[in-house]
């Protein structure tokens, strides 16, 4: 087991270098001309402006040269300067990462709660209307385009009924709490501002629900399959024979024994959440990495695109690594490939 973990950790730097290289190559080997993002259309015919812009952004150098410079800068934490915001990409990303993380974690909590509850219900009431409804609800979540669901729910809950707030992270009229963690809810609590905390939480509900629902299906399907298997085992019979109540049998005896695979699938669902966050943030004007990535992609802001792609890849890599290792530690019988 230790050897497996060490081997995985040892492979990490190479994978990260691979991610960097692939992100760099895929976005620069293409025919999109970054100059259109830098130089205004009228000046495109002016050779001196073009030459100056190329020199300023290093576009006059050859691709291998640019690659070496890029990797060299990356080691020192420099991801270049965004064409659009004209700030350091690394700084932009750091500034926006907490908003995304807050959304993704809230979505993960909502998604796993719904997923586990539905999975348990579906398995316990197997092949009844409850089971069918749970499966349909879960399937709906993984089939609906999040950007459309977000629009629809915003329209219904915010415009029609006015129960939930509109897009954004908080009411613009409220004072921003001092940034400590970057998580608005936590920062508001730390500042002791209950009104901001409730407002931020209120704004978080809809996007987190939209995003969470999209992974609830995968989770509930897995929980259902595992619960079915566990519920058929002999120790469940024993527990029932000893007079344990059904609640206790299901929650304490059965559900606890499906915990390892459940936590694993929740870990892997992180990738879907990151992907979904890109679109959810766009709909809800959420100032996170996702909306940054979208505006970068739309504006051909290549330094920002490469930066976001690398950060996304590395975050994804690390969560998967943690999930894999946690799985091996929790489940020593597993055969290591």
């Amino acid at each position, binding site marked *: 087991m230790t050897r497996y973990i060490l081997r995985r950790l040892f492979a990490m730097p190479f994978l990260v270098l691979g991610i960097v290289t692939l992100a760099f190559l*895929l976005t620069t080997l293409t025919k999109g001309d970054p100059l259109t993002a830098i130089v205004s259309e009228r000046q495109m015919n002016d050779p001196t402006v073009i030459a100056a812009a190329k020199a300023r952004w290093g576009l006059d150098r050859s691709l291998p040269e640019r690659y070496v410079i890029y990797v060299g800068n990356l080691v020192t934490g420099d991801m270049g300067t965004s064409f659009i915001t004209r700030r350091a990409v690394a700084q932009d990303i750091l500034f926006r990462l907490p908003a995304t993380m807050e959304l993704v974690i809230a979505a993960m909590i909502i998604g796993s709660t719904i997923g586990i509850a539905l999975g348990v219900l579906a398995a316990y009431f197997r092949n009844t209307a409850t089971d069918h409804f749970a499966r349909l609800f879960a399937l709906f979540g993984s089939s609906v*385009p999040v950007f*459309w669901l977000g629009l629809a729910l915003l*329209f219904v809950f915010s415009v029609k009924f006015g129960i939930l707030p509109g897009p954004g992270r908080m009411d613009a009229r409220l004072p921003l709490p001092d940034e400590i963690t970057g998580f608005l809810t936590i920062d508001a609590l730390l500042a002791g501002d209950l009104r901001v905390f409730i407002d931020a939480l209120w704004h978080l509900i809809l996007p987190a629900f939209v995003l969470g629902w999209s992974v609830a299906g995968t989770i509930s399907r897995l929980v259902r399959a595992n619960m079915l298997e566990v519920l058929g085992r002999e120790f469940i019979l024993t527990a029932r024979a000893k007079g344990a109540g059904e609640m206790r049998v299901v929650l304490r005896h059965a559900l606890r024994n499906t915990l390892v695979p459940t936590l694993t699938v929740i870990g892997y669902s992180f990738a879907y959440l990151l992907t979904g966050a*890109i679109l959810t943030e766009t709909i809800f004007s959420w100032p996170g990495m996702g909306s940054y990535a979208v505006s970068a*992609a*739309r504006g051909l802001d290549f330094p920002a695109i490469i930066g976001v792609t690398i950060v996304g890849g590395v975050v*994804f890599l690390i969560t998967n690594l943690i999930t894999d290792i946690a799985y091996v530690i929790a489940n020593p019988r597993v055969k290591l490939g």
Partner: protein
Amino acid sequence: MALLPRPKGPRWLSLPLGIGLMVVVFWLLATLLAPQMTSYDPMDMVARRLQPPSWQHFLGTDALGRDVFTRTLYGARHSLPIAVIVVCLSLTVGAFLGAISGFLGGVADNAIMRLVDITLSFPPMLLAMAVAAGLGPGLGNAAIAMVIVWWPVYARLMRAQVLEVREREHVEAAVAAGASRPRILLKHILPLCWTPVLISATMDLGQVILLAASLSFIGLGATPPTPEWGSMISEGAAQFYSWWVAFGPGAAILTIVLGFNFIGDALHDHFDPRSK
């Protein structure tokens, strides 16, 4: 298993499969016969702008006075072919490289699988966005980006299959009989590898439709005025208070992805009886 009541009655499984097939067939028909199914043209301004749904215009009209129902039907002509093309291309590339990887082993295996590992290290949407941004807008470019993101899935699956099948006795017998290596791969190993790969491909059709629509939604796939579902929803988002503009294309994506998921689920249950 005796502890849980085993209900009798009709096999519920066949119902979602049936619904799934019906929905997919409907959209296939729309792909082929859209002009016959509506009396309007998807590009024509046929009524006043932003009309709510009515008998003349089932799903209302959009900001340019075009019929949303018509545009939604025509949208199938973009989404379905793109999904099929992307899955087929990814399947071809992935299965080919995966088979080589599993069969040859050694350096080729290592090189291919590291490329697979690295590509799968990205959140799919993010990588597709980055590549599509580099290639420029257009559905064709979005398709290329999606193939780049999707082929490793099949490569990994195919490799695992080949590794498993090549250890079986009939392969050993073929080796002993002196069959050439290409012949062993093509005639004795590959025919036994396809089932799980093809099931996975069916399920992926829905996911690829979603990804393509997502790319178009953020402006990296189809561009206006193309009646593509993702870009139609993006137009609908701009007309937020006229909910019907985005309703049609959204419902279209939802139903077809749900349809493919129903079919995939039924296939999955059929081949993995544990979850029944």
